[in-house]
């Protein structure tokens, strides 16, 4: 594995209100290597978005808060930075793109204005310089008529074009890390492939590390060098994507893989994991997957398994899997 860029250690992000404590992220560890693509998969509510918003320092307050842990970007702990210092990290060292390209851009500002304001802030460019750079960025994500696009408003672009414009914006300050939270979920399949291809291509050209969040294991297989599987605010399995796909260890990951529809196989019906994700406000004491696991034993319900390195670089949180 390459040199690490981002190290997340024992990250806990909770939502605390008078009546409840929602453990959205509950002790997450992972590393993103320089120039690597890390895929994060997991069911809805497993804490993928909150993990990425924690890195950005954008956990919705005042209830939501990072209560423990470190987020080390190279040697800087982002958790300890002030609001003002985080402004210089966001968009500059770490950028993020979101799921909904339809609503993620400001409807009353032109694409050019929205890209250039970042360059003006982080690169202290003059307006004209920033606009020229915006055109260049748009061209690099495949807009042929970039000179016109900078003058257009988001509603004049299609969903796929908007997401490409978002990517151009996110990449404009040459960040060290790009976080993409389900960047293609809202797009047509053909457009999805184009956008993913573009991200891969940008990574190859610029060496930016990528954290790619998705529901779709197919996307991970296509894109990711490394992957983590999240369940109930925790990492249940992590390793290189090849290792996790070839030697799948955690029962949850196995179940996820089994639930992917396979076209050339005659199956009566789709396999779905029985049961539902436990509520983040009320996790059981033992393994969080225990209630849905076909291999469950008594100890699974009594003690929480630790995340263990069972093969080199391949970590699993399960009592039943050992070295």
């Amino acid at each position: 594995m390459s040199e690490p860029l981002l190290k997340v250690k024992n990250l806990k992000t909770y939502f605390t209100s008078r009546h409840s404590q929602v453990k959205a992220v509950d002790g997450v560890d992972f590393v993103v290597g320089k120039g690597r693509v890390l895929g994060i998969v997991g069911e809805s509510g497993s804490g993928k978005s909150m993990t990425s918003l924690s890195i950005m320092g954008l956990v919705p307050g005042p209830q939501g808060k990072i209560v423990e842990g470190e987020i080390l970007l190279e040697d800087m702990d982002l958790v300890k930075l002030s609001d003002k210092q985080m402004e210089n990290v966001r968009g500059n060292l770490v950028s993020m793109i979101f799921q909904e390209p339809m609503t993620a851009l400001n409807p009353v500002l032109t694409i050019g204005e929205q890209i250039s304001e970042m360059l003006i802030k982080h690169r202290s460019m003059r307006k004209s310089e920033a606009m020229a750079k915006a055109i260049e960025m748009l061209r690099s994500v495949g807009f042929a008529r970039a000179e016109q696009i900078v003058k257009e408003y988001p509603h004049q672009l299609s969903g796929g074009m908007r997401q490409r414009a978002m990517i151009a914006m996110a990449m404009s300050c040459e960040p060290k890390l790009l976080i993409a939270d389900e960047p293609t979920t809202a797009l047509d399949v053909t457009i999805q492939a184009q956008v993913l291809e573009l991200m891969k291509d940008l990574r190859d050209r610029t060496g930016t590390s990528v954290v790619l969040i998705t529901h779709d294991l197919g996307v991970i297989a296509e894109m990711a060098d490394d992957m983590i599987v999240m369940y109930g605010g925790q990492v249940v399995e992590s390793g290189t994507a090849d290792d996790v796909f070839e030697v799948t260890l955690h029962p949850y990951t196995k179940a996820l893989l089994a639930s992917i529809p396979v076209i050339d196989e005659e199956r009566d019906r789709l396999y779905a994991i029985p049961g539902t994700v436990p509520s983040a406000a009320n996790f059981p004491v033992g393994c969080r997957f225990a209630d849905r696991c076909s291999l469950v034993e008594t100890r699974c319900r009594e003690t929480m398994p630790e995340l263990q390195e069972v093969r080199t670089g391949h970590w699993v949180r399960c009592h039943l899997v050992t070295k």
Partner: protein
Amino acid sequence: MATYIIRRLLGLIPTLFVITVIGFLMMHAMPGNAFEALVFNPKIKNGAALYHRLLAQNGLDQSLPVQYIHWIGNILQGNFGISYNYQQPVSQLIGTYLPNTLLLAVTAEILILIISIPIGLYQARKVNGPFDVSFSFIAVLLYSIPGFVFALFLLFIFSFSLGWLPSQGTISASGANAGSFLDHLQHLLLPALALALPSLAGYTRLTRGYTLQIIVADFVRTAKAKGLGSKRIMFRHIFRNAIIPLVTQFGFDIGGLFGGAILIEQIFTWPGMGELSLNATLNRDYPLILATTLLFAVMVLIGNLIADILLAASDPRIRLN
């Protein structure tokens, strides 16, 4: 944009036509006319003959459609007729009184905007904080009190009790600074405030509400993710969007403010359109009634037009479609 405005202006013509017909019919539905009193005046000999002569002179003996066509024909030539009561050309009367009302209404509009928008923004920014909670209470209070009650309160406090500001007219009749800019301003302040206060409360609520809606929008999260400063996010991203419904509402309210001025003008003996239209109606001064009604209608329509123009100017989704 220019063609859009011209198209909209032409679109107003049918509406105005309908308004004049309705206004004309309602006016004639009122009992009595300007000259009927003469018949019963014991000091006038042969009142009935004079009455009929005056009716004929002013064309009132003809059928309503003929009268209407006659009136509209004159208007199209820029002739609004002569007021029975003031014995002056209607256009000249409006020329004297309209500027006073415009001054009052525009000052009230400016007060509304410069006071309510900052307050509403600040409330949204510190939502549920002490200022927000207390001002929300005050706003509901202000909003539920009619403008003329404010007028009386303001008069009582600032004119009669404290003696700081004059209670009537547009300028002082005598004194060292009579007719100076300051004198004008002092006379303007209380009526404009009385006119502005109820809407002002409403606009702080609107500003606060729209801002809170936008604060949670996805594109605001994007703006934060770009590392922009909180001031830039507030004004360039949040406020710039929140202002769209606000300016639209503002345009629609222009006509209403104009109407609201009638009552306030009476209280402050402000020589504006309120006085003119009220006198016209009481005296059955037909040419003046028709002209003032038309003017009020035009003000409402201009307000709506301004609303549309502001909407198009502030929202590219409208402008480019």
